[in-house]
């Protein structure tokens, strides 16, 4: 590539003395022209910058002066785009020329919970177009919450011949047909990971599309692909992939098939076990495969997941590896405390544990007793309902806090909780970085004292000095937010739902938390005046999301007027004739260097509705309104004079 030829040799040049001798006048070449000081600076800089890997360090370096900016731009090889609409693909490819790895995140997190209209955006296509021209040597592609089509995958396979890693998390829009193209087209692929993505079943035999020769596959994760696969082809694939370390199977793989794969790949370190149940019920007395020995042969196994349709009797097969496990994901296994105990008591090295609340408080007590090294715990609900019976409660939380003192990250779904337990955790687990508590009943208070949960969350922000991510729930007054504003100085991500009394709540946050990057709020009584309290800070945030709050259209317009660099997206649901609301349904705003996006949702049209574009008569605002089946999407940005 012609751009690369302009760059000094960074890789092989261990002797940089050639530059320094030139400057000091040494060397015997009479035709030599000594480089200008600027050139020297750039050469030195580029050689130094290659050691800077953290993007925050690089961002800082790029701000020093134009020369540093240029040098940094030419040498950054890993890109992170936290919001795909914050900058246009063109601008990115113009600035950074030598990119080998890119991560792009699209939709806001609340889209996972169906709070965004379908086809809202985050299309990979435009990024792919730009990258296919500029980054042909791309090696790693990471996409999260992006909309990716089969055509995109096909084009990517053609455009990036040396692509080594493709990871898609929470993506949608493609199917097994697209995967088939990736398998056959990306010959150098080492890492292919699909996680929590919605993959369509085109009935394509994509596993057979991998090349016939020995592959360099190191990680192959497809547990979210809800389609049957060609098992014989998979078995052959595993057999000819000697570097394979991570394999996560989908629920169409039976335990018998798992066995066959495991004996071919005893070198695995990470295993997703698929369904973990047999295809047919094994008859009494019939010879069962020795699953225990298959696990025993996998001496390097440190991470287990899967168990999608587990028959609990088979769980004992994993005993041989428990002692080595650092990560265990049982969050699809509906097992009780008695079934968990024999496993968990062996897992003394466990650092990450995901589980269902079916294990109840008693199961969590067993975890607390056995897993002294636990860093991350996630407890998911079997029944994601507001008023179901909750098998876990403050008892489990308290036990964990007492036994797992090194805890750094917790996600805990429950039906009832007390301030006392949360306060205890704040004092016992001082290393907490992530605290996400979801009391599933809305506005539920401390179930013993009847008090709001203010004091509990207050203690967390006060005592856990390393906290950067917080999700609150239960009955919360403005006081809780005053605590967060007062103590949450390192907070970067905050999730609020059904909480607070007045605008003061949001004001406390916006005025008190200087590091806040991602703020997502739903169904809370915060309005325009609270919104205005954050004007000084919105440019520093990745996004603000507010849905079902008390923000008005005028408030949104005013924000857009005052902050020309923000894109303010407003979504209003269609209502019946007599139903009016002064409040917008969803506000999603973020800073963008390139103005509003051109790809607002394709609209679903009913004969009775029209698509209309309108220009505001005001000279300050330009907006377009589009009506659709369910949603009106309006995008505000002030006219940028060109």
């Amino acid at each position, binding site marked *: 590539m012609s751009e690369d030829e302009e760059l000094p040799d960074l890789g092989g040049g261990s002797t940089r003395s050639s530059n320094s001798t030139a400057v000091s006048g040494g060397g015997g070449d009479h035709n030599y022209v000594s480089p200008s000081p600027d050139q020297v600076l750039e050469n030195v800089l580029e050689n130094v910058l290659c050691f800077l890997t953290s993007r925050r360090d690089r961002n800082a370096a790029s701000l020093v002066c134009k020369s540093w900016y240029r040098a940094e731009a030419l040498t950054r090889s890993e890109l992170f785009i936290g919001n795909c609409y914050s900058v246009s693909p063109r601008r990115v490819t113009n600035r950074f020329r030598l990119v080998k790895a890119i991560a792009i995140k699209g939709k806001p997190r609340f889209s*996972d*919970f*169906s*709070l965004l209209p*379908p086809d809202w955006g985050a299309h990979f296509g435009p990024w792919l177009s730009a990258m296919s021209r500029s980054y042909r040597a791309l090696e790693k592609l990471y996409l999260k919450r992006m909309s990716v089509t*089969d055509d995109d995958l096909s084009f990517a396979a053609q455009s990036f011949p040396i692509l080594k890693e493709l990871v898609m998390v*929470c993506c949608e829009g493609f*199917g097994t*047909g697209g995967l088939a193209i990736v398998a056959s087209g990306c010959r150098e692929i080492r890492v292919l990971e699909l996680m*929590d993505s*919605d993959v*369509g*079943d*085109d*009935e394509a035999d994509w596993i057979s599309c991998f090349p016939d020769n020995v592959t360099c596959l190191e990680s192959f994760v497809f547990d979210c692909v*809800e389609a049957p696969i060609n098992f014989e082809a998979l078995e052959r694939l595993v057999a000819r992939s000697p570097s394979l370390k991570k394999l996560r199977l989908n*629920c169409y793989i039976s335990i018998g098939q798992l066995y066959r794969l495991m004996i071919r790949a005893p070198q695995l370190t990470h295993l997703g076990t698929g369904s973990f149940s047999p295809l047919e019920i094994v008859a009494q007395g019939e010879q069962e495969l020795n699953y225990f020995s298959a696990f025993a042969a996998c001496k390097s196994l440190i991470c287990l997941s899967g168990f*999608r*349709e587990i028959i609990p009797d088979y769980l004992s097969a994993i005993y041989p590896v428990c002692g080595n496990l650092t990560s265990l994901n049982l969050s*699809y296994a*509906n097992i009780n405390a008695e079934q968990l105990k024999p496993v968990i008591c062996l897992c003394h090295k466990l650092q990450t544990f995901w589980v269902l609340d079916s294990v109840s408080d008693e199961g969590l007590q067993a975890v607390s007793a056995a897993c002294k090294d636990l860093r991350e715990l996630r407890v*998911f609900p*079997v*029944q*994601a*309902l*507001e*008023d179901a019976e909750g098998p876990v409660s403050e008892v489990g939380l308290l036990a964990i806090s007492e036994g797992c003192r090194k805890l750094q990250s917790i996600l805990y*779904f429950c039906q009832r909780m007390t301030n006392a337990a949360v306060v205890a955790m704040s004092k016992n687990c001082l290393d907490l970085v992530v605290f996400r508590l979801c009391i*599933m*009943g*809305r*506005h*539920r*208070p401390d179930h013993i004292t*009847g*008090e*709001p949960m203010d004091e509990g969350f207050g203690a967390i922000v006060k005592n856990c000095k390393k906290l950067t991510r917080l999700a609150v729930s239960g*009955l*919360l*007054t403005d006081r809780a937010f005053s605590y967060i504003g007062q103590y949450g100085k390192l907070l970067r991500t905050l*999730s609020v739902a*059904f*909480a607070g*009394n007045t605008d003061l709540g949001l004001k406390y946050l916006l005025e008190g938390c200087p590091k806040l990057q991602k703020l997502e709020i*739903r*169904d809370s*009584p915060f309005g325009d005046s609270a919104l205005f309290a954050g004007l000084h800070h919105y440019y520093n945030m990745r996004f603000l999301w507010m849905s*079902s*709050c*008390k923000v008005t259209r005028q408030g949104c317009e005013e924000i857009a007027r005052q902050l020309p660099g923000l894109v303010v997206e407003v979504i209003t*649901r269609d209502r019946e004739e007599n*139903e009016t609301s002064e*409040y917008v*349904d969803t506000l999603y705003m973020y800073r963008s260097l390139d103005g509003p996006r051109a790809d607002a949702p394709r609209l*679903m*049209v*009913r*004969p009775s509705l029209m698509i209309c574009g309108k220009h505001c008569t005001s000279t300050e605002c330009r907006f377009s309104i589009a009506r659709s089946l*369910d949603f009106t999407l309006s995008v505000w940005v002030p006219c940028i004079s060109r």
Partner: protein
Amino acid sequence: MAHENELNLKATELRLGLPGTDESEDMVSTAKNNKRASPESLEDSGSEANSAAKSGDHETSSASKTQIVGWPPVRSYRKNNLQSKKAESETGMYVKVSMDGAPYLRKVDLKVYNGYPELLVALENMFKLSIGEYSEREGYEGSEYAPAYEDKDGDLMLVGDVPWDMFMSSCKRLRIMRGSEAKGLGCAV
């Protein structure tokens, strides 16, 4: 509570019923991913937050719970995977859904839905289209698309004609047809 007593009586009752109308006590209605926010949810946010001891009884007194979109915040992928796990021998009721002109099929678990409206909304969202109002006389007259299904006998039927439970037990495959082709499937008397 009254609901449970009613079920017990029904268990011992002799009756002739349409196929598929046996109620399962385990049938829990979950916060479905595709449900729209009910009007109540928008008003709820400000009104009662000031009161002290609020013990989650504000909306559960009525038998029909108002489900809030996206709450609790569990990803639909995870919810769907657990919902289809039933202890009994039958697995989740996944049927393929094809749409005329679409390159790939999808799958839906019929058990996740409470009735036709939910199913139709889910299909609308999944394929990004609109299905009109159902009428017994006109079918989905006037809509761009109409949902049809293949039943046990292999016949192509219009979705909505039979009671939901009967539909669930007889539907083998769904097909979203263009409205123009679906004429003639409505039972115009």
